[in-house]
């Protein structure tokens, strides 16, 4: 097949590819990459490890449907993430949480010991799991190269592969120290691996279905000839179903709590909305896997029937059986992808926990006292690097000396059950205010004890030392009493341990009230949505602390510049004078948060505690303050709403006021023009009167002319005054229209007759065009006469000698249309609308100032509008046309 050397080279190339992707992602940081929800969703698939790739196939081949719960459990739970994970992400963001241990321990009072316990639990659960991956890499490597496993570590190629992985993880995993900085490089590499492993399993699946066999139904038919096929692929009554359900519960819990899942789903989450994509993408991913595992497993059974072959490695053995090197290597790489991604992420997240919760708080806090920021950061990074390295080596040792004989499947499940002990405390943190530290710790320890007794001991002691007798065995047998007949060992232990764990947690939390600090965090967690805006306010603390002391500590880890920046933002947010010397609770919380991003919540708290002096507060007081604060938040919201309403109202008033001012000004302008219009006839009258009074020998004809002037100008004055008052009444709706049915032609004639002689005097030719089907319309006749009078009079003024005036009467739909055309000068375009304004005087030179009041057209317009019609003027060739449109029917009086 393939030589060791060649395969090793392939592995190197593959790792180099990962390295390249991580490097590019870090360097480029392009928006597409950072904001891509699919990268996030793919990274969650780190859930599928070598266990999925190889172990599940083994389970499917040997115990049938039991391979499904590992996938079905998460698929059932993940929809709830839209609610749960959003909240977890918020809590984590706000508190700068960098690991699962931080998340849980912070909630229960930020206890150093609790976070240490959780870290240890994770170590016990995950290190063997990492060993599992190494085992898979090593064994598949040897399978593909058809070399025997070497007893000597140094000549075992797997060793070198493992070393490379450890180096890669420790370099890229520790680039960023702060919890808020996302490890884009690593996550991109993980996403790529998730994609590759799915891709390769699909290739393998298609190979088995369509090449090794003739389709899915072919496999099914042939496999069903196995005697155990039916039994394995149906639920065997209640027993099978119950086991199955509990296995689903185990994996459903694991998908939320496994450190690597918490890390990719929560810590590395960049945008809350990515969760929405993950909700459908990830289950889909899992479904594809489940689909292909079945044919591979049973295909393997069929091909290798009668041979003593480990079904866990069917995926390698099948293509190898058909001498297809390419697919064999691809499958190997797929398995490698799944192992490597698990190792990287788990190592990183465990190292964060180990450094933040074990090493720093219990040993090295002292070391950070005198150092500067760069040094401190380097120390933290180094601690993490060594942790990663150390953990991988530890896992390797574990693999070599412990799991050689165990199946992948059982180690994986045991791991899940152990990590599942964190579930009551974890979910309780999110939903239950009363959950207390004591309850959580004792419940956890009890659950762990049961796991140890029920799983670890039989697994590791009894399987190696079958005949051990003695006290341990006797105690053990005594517990047979608790056997549940339907469940196999692992689900049974899971059931009991979780039951006892949750029970103790609940009972102890209810009977013993937690201290105020726990309660504080409980409120913050459960009500994260309320407090998210200013969570520093939700933290109750009383005591003495000085800003300068705390600032010193911050500078040691964040550096001078970042500390100053952060403090400036804090001061602005809470409107605090930068000269303030004493620190309040908000500042304490704020500082703890900043530090927690670097060294974890437990150590941050210890450091800050070191320079502050806290006063005792009673739980009751804390709850009261929190209640008040919640009320304030609701009150605040209401105030903001009210303030918005008031602003809107004030805006409305403003514009109404402006309107009034404009109207006022328009009125002033109007009065101005009225005064102006009145003064002109008065001037003529006065001048004529003055002359008549002073001049004794004025010629008679001139005398008569002046006297005439007085009379006509007085009339004119009257007319103006009347029109002004009339127009005012019209505008205020004070003139009631007297609407009746009238004959339009007769009305027209009535209007025309008084000015007929004037028209004839100017030798103007006047005519009417009648296109009407009816003559009776509804209008106020007196007003209509007035209107015609105005328009015709206007036409008369502007028609030159021997010109033409033509009136055209027509209908259109429900309207009566009257057009009055006169020959004469055109009206300038810009004036066509303005001539209907009061006293309008054209700026343009060509309009002869009309005699009369100057209000005629304005009045006409109002009259037309009072009838719900409209009037307009337009230039038509050699003259001007006024068009009046009136509704045929109007509301009768």
């Amino acid at each position: 097949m393939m030589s060791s050397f060649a395969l090793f080279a392939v592995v190197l190339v593959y790792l180099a590819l990962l390295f390249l992707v991580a490097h590019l992602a870090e360097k480029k940081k392009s928006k597409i990459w950072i904001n891509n929800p699919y990268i996030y969703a793919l990274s969650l698939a780190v859930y599928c490890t070598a266990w999925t790739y190889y172990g599940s196939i083994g389970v499917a081949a040997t115990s049938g449907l039991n391979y499904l719960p590992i996938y079905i459990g998460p698929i059932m739970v993940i929809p709830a993430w839209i609610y749960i994970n959003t909240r977890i992400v918020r809590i984590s963001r706000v508190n700068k949480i960098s690991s699962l241990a931080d998340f849980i321990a912070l909630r229960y009072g930020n206890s150093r010991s609790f976070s240490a316990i959780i870290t240890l639990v994770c170590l016990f659960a995950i290190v063997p799991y990492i060993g599992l991956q190494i085992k898979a890499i090593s064994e598949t490597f040897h399978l593909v190269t058809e070399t025997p496993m070497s007893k000597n570590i140094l000549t075992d190629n797997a060793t070198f592969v493992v070393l490379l992985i450890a180096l890669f993880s420790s370099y890229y995993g520790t680039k960023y120290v702060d919890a808020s900085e996302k490890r884009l490089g690593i996550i991109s590499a993980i996403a790529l691996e998730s994609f590759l492993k799915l891709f390769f399993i699909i290739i393998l699946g298609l190979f088995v279905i369509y090449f090794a066999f003739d389709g899915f139904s072919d496999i099914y038919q042939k496999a069903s000839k196995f005697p155990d096929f039916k039994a394995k692929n149906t639920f065997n009554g209640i027993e099978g179903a119950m086991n199955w359900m509990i296995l689903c519960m185990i994996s459903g819990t694991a998908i939320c709590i496994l450190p690597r899942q918490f890390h990719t789903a929560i810590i590395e989450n960049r945008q809350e909305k990515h969760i929405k994509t993950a909700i459908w993408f990830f289950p889909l991913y899992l479904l594809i896997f489940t689909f292909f595992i079945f044919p591979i497993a049973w295909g393997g059974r069929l091909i290798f029937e009668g041979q003593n072959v480990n079904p866990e490695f069917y995926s390698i053995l099948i293509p190898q059986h058909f001498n297809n090197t390419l697919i064999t290597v691809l499958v190997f790489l797929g398995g490698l992808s799944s192992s490597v991604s698990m190792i990287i992420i788990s190592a990183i997240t465990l190292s964060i926990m180990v450094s933040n919760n074990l090493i720093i708080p219990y040993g090295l806090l002292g070391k950070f006292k005198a150092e500067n920021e760069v040094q401190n950061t380097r120390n933290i990074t180094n601690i993490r690097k060594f942790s990663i390295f150390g953990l991988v080596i530890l896992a390797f040792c574990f693999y070599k000396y412990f799991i050689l004989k165990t199946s992948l499947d059982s180690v994986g499940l045991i791991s899940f059950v152990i990590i599942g002990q964190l579930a009551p405390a974890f979910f309780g943190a999110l939903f239950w205010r009363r959950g207390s530290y004591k309850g959580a710790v004792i419940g956890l320890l009890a659950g762990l004890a049961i796991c140890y007794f029920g799983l670890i001991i039989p697994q590791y002691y009894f399987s190696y030392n079958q005949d051990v007798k003695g006290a341990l065995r006797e105690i053990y047998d005594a517990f047979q009493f608790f056997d549940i007949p339907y469940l196999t060992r692992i689900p049974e232990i899971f059931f009991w341990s979780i039951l006892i764990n949750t029970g103790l947690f609940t009972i102890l939390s209810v009977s013993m009230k937690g201290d105020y600090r726990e309660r504080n965090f409980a409120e913050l967690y459960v009500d994260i949505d309320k407090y998210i805006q200013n969570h520093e306010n939700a933290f109750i603390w009383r005591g003495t602390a000085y800003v300068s002391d705390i600032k010193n500590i911050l500078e040691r880890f964040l550096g001078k510049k970042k500390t100053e920046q952060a403090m400036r933002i804090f001061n602005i947010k809470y409107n605090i004078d930068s000269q303030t010397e004493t620190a309040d609770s908000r500042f304490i919380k704020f500082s703890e948060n900043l530090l927690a991003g670097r060294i974890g919540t437990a150590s941050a708290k210890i450091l800050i505690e070191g320079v502050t002096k806290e006063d005792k507060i009673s739980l009751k007081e804390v709850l009261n303050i929190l209640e008040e604060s919640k009320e304030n938040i609701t009150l605040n919201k209401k105030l903001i709403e009210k303030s918005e309403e008031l602003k809107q109202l004030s805006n409305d008033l403003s514009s109404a006021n402006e309107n009034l001012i404009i109207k006022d000004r328009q009125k002033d302008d109007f009065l101005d023009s009225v005064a102006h219009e009145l003064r002109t006839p008065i001037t003529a009258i006065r001048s004529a009167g003055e002359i008549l009074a002073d001049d004794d020998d004025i010629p008679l004809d001139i005398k008569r002319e002046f006297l005439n002037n007085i009379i006509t100008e007085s009339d004119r004055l009257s007319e103006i005054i009347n029109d002004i008052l009339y127009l005012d009444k019209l505008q205020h709706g004070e003139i009631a229209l007297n609407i009746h049915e009238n004959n339009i032609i007769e009305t027209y004639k009535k209007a025309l007759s008084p000015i007929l002689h004037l028209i004839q005097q100017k030798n103007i030719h006047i005519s009417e065009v009648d296109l009407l089907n009816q003559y009776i319309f509804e209008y106020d006749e007196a007003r209509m006469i007035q209107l015609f009078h105005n328009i015709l009079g206007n036409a008369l003024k502007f028609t030159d000698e021997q010109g033409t005036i033509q009136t055209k009467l027509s209908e259109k739909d429900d309207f009566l249309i009257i057009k009055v055309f006169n020959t004469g000068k055109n009206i300038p375009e810009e004036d066509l609308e303005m001539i209907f304004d009061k006293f309008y005087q054209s700026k343009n030179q060509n309009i002869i100032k009309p005699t009369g009041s100057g209000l005629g057209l304005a009045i006409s317009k109002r009259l037309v509008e009072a009838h719900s019609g409209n009037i307009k003027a337009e230039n038509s060739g050699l003259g001007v046309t006024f068009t009046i449109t009136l509704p045929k029917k109007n509301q009768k009086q």
Partner: protein
Amino acid sequence: MKKILIADDEHKILMSLEYSFRKIGYEVFIARDGTEVLEFLKTLIPDVILLDIMMPNLDGYSTLEEIKKNEALNNTKVLFLSAKNNPTDIEKGLEMGADAYVTKPYSIKKLISQIEELFNS
């Protein structure tokens, strides 16, 4: 004989002014708007110009601007005769360089003596 150019678009007002100034010995020229005024001024140098402000074609203000540009008319007295009474208009007219601003309605007698004062000062 002094020459006076009177500009107003109201015929009846022109009539009164023409009669009165002829009576006291002026040679009277009549214009109905600013353009007619400028037309006159091409060949005529009057001693007095009476300008209405609100006239068609070219209003009183623009006419005065043109008059001011004409050096030949430096000694001509120009008076605004206008129905526009508010202080801003009066100020504007005077700032533009009119020798006086008379508001309508006016007393013809007062107008005549005002013009005389202008010649005496």
